[in-house]
């Protein structure tokens, strides 16, 4: 899973460099949004989706466990 997610993150970085839309404004999405701007707006949504995957599959649980143990100790005092 880590390999797949690493690949997705690296692919996202390359997708950000959309040189194939560099010199074109058309089509205008919804009649007014240049394609280059629309692409990067969608890219932001893609980033959010990638974060969902990272949170779901590689969340650093071990860090949380120690901190929770300390918190429980504090609350117990």
């Amino acid at each position, binding site marked *: 899973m880590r390999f797949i997610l690493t690949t997705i993150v690296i692919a996202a970085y390359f997708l950000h460099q959309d040189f194939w839309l560099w010199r074109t404004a058309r089509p205008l999405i919804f009649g*007014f949004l240049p394609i280059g701007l629309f692409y990067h707006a969608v*890219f932001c949504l893609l980033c*959010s989706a990638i974060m969902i995957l990272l949170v779901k599959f590689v969340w650093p649980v071990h860090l949380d466990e*120690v901190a929770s143990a*300390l918190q429980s100790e504090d609350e117990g005092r």
Partner: protein
Amino acid sequence: MIPALFVFTYLAVVLYVGIFAFRRSSRSESAEDYFLANRSLGTVVFLFSLFGTNMTAFTILGSSGHAFSNGIVTFGLMASASALIIPLTLFFIGTRLWALGKRFGFMTPVQFFRDRWECGHIGTLIFAVQAALLVPYIIIGVMGGGSTLSAISGGWVPYWLGGALVALVVMGYVFFGGMRGTAWVNTLQTILFLSFGAAALAVIGAGMGGFRRAAEDMLASAATAPLLTRERVSPWFFLSYTFIPLSTIAFPHINIFCLTARRMQQFKPTVILYPICLLAIWLPSVFLGVMANNATAVPSIAAKLEARKTLAAQDSVLNPEERARLRQGAAGDDVVVLLLNHYAPIWLAGLLGAGIMAAVMASDSQILALSTMFTEDVFAFYGGKERFGPAAQVHTGRIFVLGLTAVAYLVALRAPASIFELAVQYAFSGYSSLFPLLVAALFWKGSTKWGALASTLWTVFAVVAVAVFQYAIPAPQSGPPTTVCTLFGGAALSRTPGGTAVFGLMPVVPMVLISSLLMVVLSCLTRKPARQTLIRYFPQSKAPMSAAEHPRLT
């Protein structure tokens, strides 16, 4: 005048929030309570406040101004690159900083570096560099407050009074409320930002007769059509700009803020929603900035377009004063305010003016971060806490807030803004160059204090070198960059209209790469920290360490 009344109401509300936070704080007056809100921020406040902390005057005013002059490329450069990089750094670095803060009681990054690399004075040097890079930000915030309040009131409030009012309000809620007050105010500010975008788009779109016609008109004109593409910016420049968001997690006000979450779970919605918040704020700001090029019905914007046209046509024959005057006239930092004043009803313009004011007042978290760093990394480290007690530490922090804000205000009254605007540009590259310190300290057992020292000194050298270079070599008026040094037949070092290029890339790229290289080489050549220290940070087994293995420092 009515919009200014909305802004005054907003200022009164945020001041009240700070005082309310003061009344909610624990009576013990502990440093952790004042500087970190007792590490107890909930999910909503943590998300909105972390986001608001990172949004400055540039987000609404500067981004639309940049888009007015450069087109849609602004969004890809500054928003969508951050939408990927910033959540990743929060995920991998922010969570680890939070966990270390919980385990060992760290309140600043320098405390962590000192313990991790067993260094004292090198930590003090890192503090000094971080502080030097942060101060211009605070001064720019006060300047922005003064000029925005003056613009919104139509000149009724002079610059000096506007700056004083903003400085007093920020100082008030940081002084009383500490991190809790700052976080609550930032939450309110973020909600205002988020409302601002949609409302401004709807009102201005309706006023301009719809954006479809405006977009088609712009595409039909040779002067404005390139603004709807990215042809004026090189793909290499675009690529190198992705190194800038690395600075975010290295900024002290951001990494200190990571320590305030009650639980690590609170990072989850933050990293997921951060790109969407960026989209909600930046897309309207950039789009409106681009569309302003077609708002010739607004007299002040028409004058800007005329100034730009004159510059393009007669640049080579203009004298320096005339050129500077035209450049100032063509600058677009106030286009959103001008669009609102023209198209929005007065009450909405006032409400949205308060939203802009919220963006301008983002210097609060930087003031608090600097105060935290001073009291923890200098006052407490050099014995002040032991000698005078923990209560004196909080008092020192508050006095520092008063002093710093007063100095920032006095400097803002006398110094030209352009100096600090440039310094803020350098600050982003400088903090990106300090990013390898965080990565090495958290993930590389073999890193040493000498590697950290080399990276820090390199950062200082590079920031000063870029500043001196840009001062010594005047920016070309237009056209190709001035090449100063060539290598293998290509331009190695050039002065561009907007700054400096190294092999066609922004200076931030070599700064980060060389900083990383120095960290690796010096660490490989020098003695590692004691085994006991390494075991605390890098447990041998994969099993989680018990709480007993992590004695707190405080």
